[in-house]
């Protein structure tokens, strides 16, 4: 859930979509500016945070990657819990991954909170010659509009539009949250870092 300090917002963002669509690559490109041609299936780190400055606020995104648990449909309810934003990723060169993205949208509508900022992302748009999912006409964009998602095509490889999705999400996150249930405490072994993120001096 997005929480507000003095013009600073903490928000959990989850990535969804089938294996091999480039979810981790998008995050790596965004957070570290890197791209690996043969990125291994997600291992070791599936939790990034990145702070973005948009016009009226500082937004700290806590980005959750699936850690491969999407492979056999074993994502835990915890994954969706409290998420303020979601990016659903498909691979423009694989129609099947787009069909599966629609299933993820349904899953999100079932599990997630209704006010979530959701975007549909067609990744690997550098693979124009292998394109299977059309941008306009009856496919991706229309589907996104019909389902209240914002839509972009990206390439983690060339970096096209990658930062744009994350900034667009940061802009769209609700500024005034209704009073949430208390968030509770986080137990940390590095107290300073956590308190900086979640306290303010109002």
């Amino acid at each position, binding site marked *: 859930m997005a929480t507000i300090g003095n013009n600073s917002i903490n928000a959990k963002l989850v990535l969804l979509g089938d294996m091999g669509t480039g979810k981790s690559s998008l995050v790596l490109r965004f957070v570290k500016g890197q791209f690996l041609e043969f990125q291994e299936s997600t291992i070791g780190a599936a*939790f990034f945070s990145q702070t973005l400055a948009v016009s009226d606020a500082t937004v700290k995104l806590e980005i959750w990657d699936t850690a491969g648990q999407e492979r056999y449909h074993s994502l835990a309810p915890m994954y969706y819990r409290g998420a303020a934003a979601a990016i659903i990723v498909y691979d423009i060169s694989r129609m099947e991954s787009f069909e599966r993205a629609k299933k993820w949208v349904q899953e999100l509508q079932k599990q997630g909170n209704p006010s979530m900022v959701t975007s549909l992302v067609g990744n690997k748009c550098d693979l124009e010659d292998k394109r299977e999912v059309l941008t306009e006409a009856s496919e991706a964009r229309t589907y996104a509009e019909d389902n209240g998602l914002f839509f972009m095509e990206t390439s983690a490889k060339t970096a096209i539009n990658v930062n744009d999705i994350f900034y667009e999400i940061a802009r769209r996150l609700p500024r005034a949250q209704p009073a949430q249930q208390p968030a509770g405490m986080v137990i940390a072994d590095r107290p300073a870092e956590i308190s900086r993120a979640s306290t303010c001096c109002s």
Partner: protein
Amino acid sequence: MDEEYDVIVLGTGLKECILSGLLSVDGLKVLHMDRNDYYGGESTSLSLVQLWKRFRSNDKPPELLGSSREYNVDMIPKFMMANGTLVRVLIRTGVTKYLNFKAVDGSFVYNNGKIYKVPATDVEALKSTLMGLFEKRRARKFFIYVQDYEDDDPKSHEGLDLNKVTTRDVISKYGLEDNTVDFIGHALALHRDDSYLDEPAIYTVKRMKLYAESLARFQGGSPYIYPLYGLGELPQGFARLSAVYGGTYMLNKPECKVEFDTDGKAYGVTSEGETAKCKKVVCDPSYLPDKVKKVGRVARAICIMSHPIPNTNDSHSVQIILPQKQLGRRSDMYVFCCSYAHNVAPKGKYIAFVSTEAETDHPETELKPGIDLLGPVDETFFDIYDRYEPANHDEQDNCFISTSYDATTHFESTVQDVISMYKKITGKELDLSVDLSAASAAGEDA
């Protein structure tokens, strides 16, 4: 799934998920499967509809109780000691970052038909109405002795070698009354029966210190903390850890049959016609029913209420211990209550559990002293489940089976089982050295 793994873990209960996480972090190749389509196995938390399906054989809970999804009813209700081993495991593995906790409001003890806040420090002992004037002073002295006791400071031992002297002897030195001994042993040191009296006093002193240090940590009314959305979050958190380190997860896998070679050694697991090979199998008792023995039964009542438990200062979360002797029983009874304050029920609703090691076949009658403390309830479910222990030799069959969850209201025995299984599986001690003094709670009001 047709691959070879170092370890296949069956069942996604808390113990199995912690082990799966630790083994993946160690670099082992882990496949983790569950026959259910949800995480948590026996230690899951259920929605209202799931609860009705399980205990009422229908999926139509009364609308009066509110939204099914807002309920997270623990099947194995327990609290975490703020300084206990589970917190150490959580910090050591970094799983804390997936979870949010809140302190538990109160810790009470049943004495002569009434309940009292558990006094845990010398100051509280003096304030408590649990003891008479002179007894308070004696208890205070004993508490100060325990607080000051340090293993490596002989001066603090006051001439007693606690590794040799029994608890009974130390207590008689301070001249404490039976009722005081009762709450110290059961509500502070959290012993489950009275055998501790004849064991070296060091065990009891260490447990009392853990209680007092846990109490001091978050300035709550109890030494306990509890995760928002219920305990079902814990196995999910450790499963995520395992997945992050390369563990493969498959839910809703029917059968999960362990395959044995001619020497009786497990070599794989078959589900839906496919066999995954492995060197070791880790599972809960339900996956290898021929290799476990029944060691007891837990009787429990699950109650949904619209008010806090009376006489607990309106605590939104609370534990009450009813020591065996107070009830004329062989084992303690535990009351555990949580509410919407921990996001386990809709606004205004409370969930209480009364549990004990079953001594009869009639949980309704047996649990009455605990249920009587609750006041009126909206719904009650009675249940008895069997507890199992492994009866195999892991060096002969490569199977590592966890022990069923007991009726205690905290996780110390649970994590001890995990630690000893980890040692058997890997041949090494689990390193739980974390600097608890550097760990702290943050973001209480974030």
